[in-house]
């Protein structure tokens, strides 16, 4: 049985804007699945639907047999996930350590253990003790991304979601973060869904890639098979990404 099943997912906002128009996708246990697509293609909305932040207009999302619509099992469903937001979404009013401790305290009542877990996770993502008592605004974008990753993994999730993990970072820091994500994912053995428009990130992190265009999943396969797959949008996307890279 697949870990995550998107079954004909539709999302239409109150304004009448249809962002997802029948998305079908299966993600297997332990797989690193990348959802590629242009900006405004519905990737972030799809993730927010997966996380139960947006209600579905139609269709269903099932994780380990639990539907996102099942309000009785909402807590159990939500506990499976952790997300690394595009803008990190660290809490401004808390220090870096407090951010991670706050997340860890949601699954552990022991204060000592929470403190230990938070420090361990921050060290695991390469942050030193000197930044623990700083506020998010006082550290660099790369450090914030690391702290957000530490917060995400401190929840010990079954599914990790990365929303544009390298956006806003310079190429060097982006590369370091990509490596960190790959190492973290491998060491945890969790299922990963990453949304990005960066083909290099996809090629580096993905077991399989899906392309989302205008609210519909147009292709799923291995990143290496994108070129020459026969799908016009996929080939155009691949070509455009490579043209940009060559420039």
């Amino acid at each position: 049985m697949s870990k995550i099943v998107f079954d004909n997912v539709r999302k239409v906002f109150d304004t009448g804007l249809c962002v997802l128009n029948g998305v079908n996708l299966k993600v297997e246990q332990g797989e690193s699945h990348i959802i590629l697509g242009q900006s405004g293609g519905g990737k972030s909305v799809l993730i927010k639907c997966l996380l139960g932040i947006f209600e579905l207009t139609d269709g269903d999302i099932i994780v380990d047999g639990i539907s996102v619509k099942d309000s009785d099992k909402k807590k159990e469903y939500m506990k499976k996930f952790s997300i690394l937001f595009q803008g990190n979404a660290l809490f401004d009013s808390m220090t870096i350590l407090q951010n991670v401790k706050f997340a860890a305290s949601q699954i552990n009542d022991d204060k000592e253990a929470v403190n230990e877990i938070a420090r361990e996770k921050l060290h695991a993502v390469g942050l030193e003790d000197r930044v623990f008592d700083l506020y998010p605004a006082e550290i660099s974008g790369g450090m914030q991304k690391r702290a957000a990753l530490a917060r995400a993994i401190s929840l010990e999730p079954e599914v990790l979601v990365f929303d544009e993990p390298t956006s806003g970072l310079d190429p060097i820091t982006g590369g370091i973060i990509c490596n960190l994500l790959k190492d973290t994912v491998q060491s945890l053995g969790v299922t990963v869904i990453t949304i990005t428009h960066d083909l290099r990130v996809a090629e580096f992190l993905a077991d399989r890639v899906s392309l989302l265009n205008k609210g519909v999943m147009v292709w799923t396969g291995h990143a290496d098979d994108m070129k020459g797959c026969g799908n016009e949008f996929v080939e155009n996307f691949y070509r455009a990404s490579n043209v940009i890279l060559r420039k």
Partner: protein
Amino acid sequence: MNVLTTLGKYTLATVREIGKIAIFSARGFKSCFAPPFYFKEMRRHMVVVGFYSLPIVALTALFAGMTIALQTYVGFTRFNAEGAIATVVVISITRELGPVFAGLMVTGRVCSAIAAEIGSMKVSDQIDALTTLGVDPFKFLVAPRMIAGAVMLPFLVLIADIIGVMGGFLVATESLDFSVGSYINQTVVNLQSIDVISGLIKASFFGLCATIFGCYHGFESDVGAKGVGNATTSAVVASCIGVLALNCLLTTVFFGK
């Protein structure tokens, strides 16, 4: 026909907005009484609402008390009733000016800050982050602020009452040649407990009003700096009107015939 259509649209939009605020408030109240309780957040907001608002509320009350004493003196001397100044000052301050000025000052200082903070959190996905951590944003963001507003405003008003009355006393004794003993005597004799208690109850409602409007407009904030700015402005305007409307309603409840 166009006028009717426009009027209808505005009426529907207003009714919809009132409905949304009512649902938001009900959810907020429910969160105040259901665990988990975030006591650390509650303490933090009590300090922000109570302690940090104290100087501005105290100054406002002082000037209000002084001005009433002066104005009452000028008006009352016209029919030889200047002896009632102490009574007018203490009743005006405790029943009306203390709570209303404190409510408006807290609206300006706290409600705007709440709307801006929550609006920024929404824009930067921090509220979604709370949800994904399994934390109810109402329990973590709204309930502690509502409780802080409802609990701390009465304390602020009590202090504002004392300082306001002191302001009137200073003007009366230092500038208008009233005797200290008779002014204090008049103040104490004519002050009834309902004057103070009604003001404190009003204050609690004003605290709730300011925090609910701040939270609501923060949650409803649009994306971007302009969206957060608009949310802050809307929160302050709505809360000011809310405080004045509530004051009218509660005055009728306490003192209406």
